[in-house]
């Protein structure tokens, strides 16, 4: 029942936002995070083309032994990824709220450049209010 981390991946596979909550995750360098996000982007592209019955939105949940990652793909290709414990029941709804905060505090902010790293104070505040400080 814990949320460990949040990633936002742009449509080209670049990591534009990354934040850890609590001390559950190992500390990686920002370069390592970029590589992991790019890999996830590739895996997601593979899963979306493997569907046996028509088109698919790709992987929505990837589970490990101790944690799972829930992926929300938006209509514009931006991906929101939430790393949580296995028992976390609200990952989907939290991601929807993150998407809402993204639409409000990032897309409506004139000082944000699309597809570039998110440096918006408003988004940080909204995420803190939603998930808690990290």
């Amino acid at each position, binding site marked *: 029942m814990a949320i460990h981390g949040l990633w936002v991946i742009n449509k080209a596979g670049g990591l534009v936002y990354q934040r850890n909550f609590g001390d559950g995750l190992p500390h990686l360098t920002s370069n390592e995070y970029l590589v992991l996000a790019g890999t996830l982007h590739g895996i997601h592209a593979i899963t979306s083309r493997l569907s046996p019955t028509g088109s698919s939105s790709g992987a929505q949940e990837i589970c490990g032994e101790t944690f799972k990652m829930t992926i929300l793909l938006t209509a514009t290709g931006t991906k929101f990824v939430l790393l949580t414990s296995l028992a976390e029941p609200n990952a989907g709804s939290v991601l929807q709220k993150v998407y809402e905060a993204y639409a*409000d*505090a990032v*897309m*409506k*902010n*004139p*000082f944000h450049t699309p597809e570039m790293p998110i*440096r*918006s*104070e*408003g*988004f940080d*505040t909204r995420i803190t209010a939603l998930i808690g400080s990290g």
Partner: protein
Amino acid sequence: MAYNQPQPHPRFSVLSSSSLSSLEHLSPVGSSTRFSLPSAPSISTTSAPKPGQRPNIYDRNLNKTRAAEVSASAFAFLFSELVQYTHKRVNGINDLERRLNTLGYRVGMRVLELMSWRAEGSTKAPKREIRFLPALMNIHTHVWRAVFGRPADAIEKSVQNADEYMIIDNDPPITRHISVPRDMSSLSCSSFTAGIVEAVLDGLGFPARVTAHNTPTGQYPGRTTILIKLEQSVLDREEAMKP
């Protein structure tokens, strides 16, 4: 009798009717009985405007939209584009604020005209504010309500300078989603609002210089002060009019 139909748009020009979508040209309702030539739909562009068409925006009743609301999201995107457009074409924060002020001024002129028309247009003895404080109250309450849907949060008078007044908004709706980067932290996008206030004051005959400043508090991180610096002539007149 067929020609006696009410023609709601006598000023509807051929030019504007030709810009209608081709779908409407092809609709059977569109062609009048005089020109029943469905095989040549282009002729119908010269016919009278069709009934049931949306009226020209200039022919609409101004009171119809009195209680109408605008999507805050749509406006936020529009305002964001407006700031980006302006930002690309200026050097420095002062220039950006001045341009936003100018854009707000254009809105304010129209707001004042529309508000006076709505409030006083139908009365026998229309009046306007000639004293400054009632005018300021009017801006705080009615202009804010017309533009933002609620009154502003406070009015203050400067202690140091007799010519300075402030309107305070704890959470301005137009800058709610804007995070100003640290290197431009002195920028206040509420300069647009300042422009609106400046235009209304100008229109009422109180020339002033109006600017916007961020004055965040712990409870209200978006708190904004609209600073009004009146011209000396206004102060002199106020003094002369004292009973």
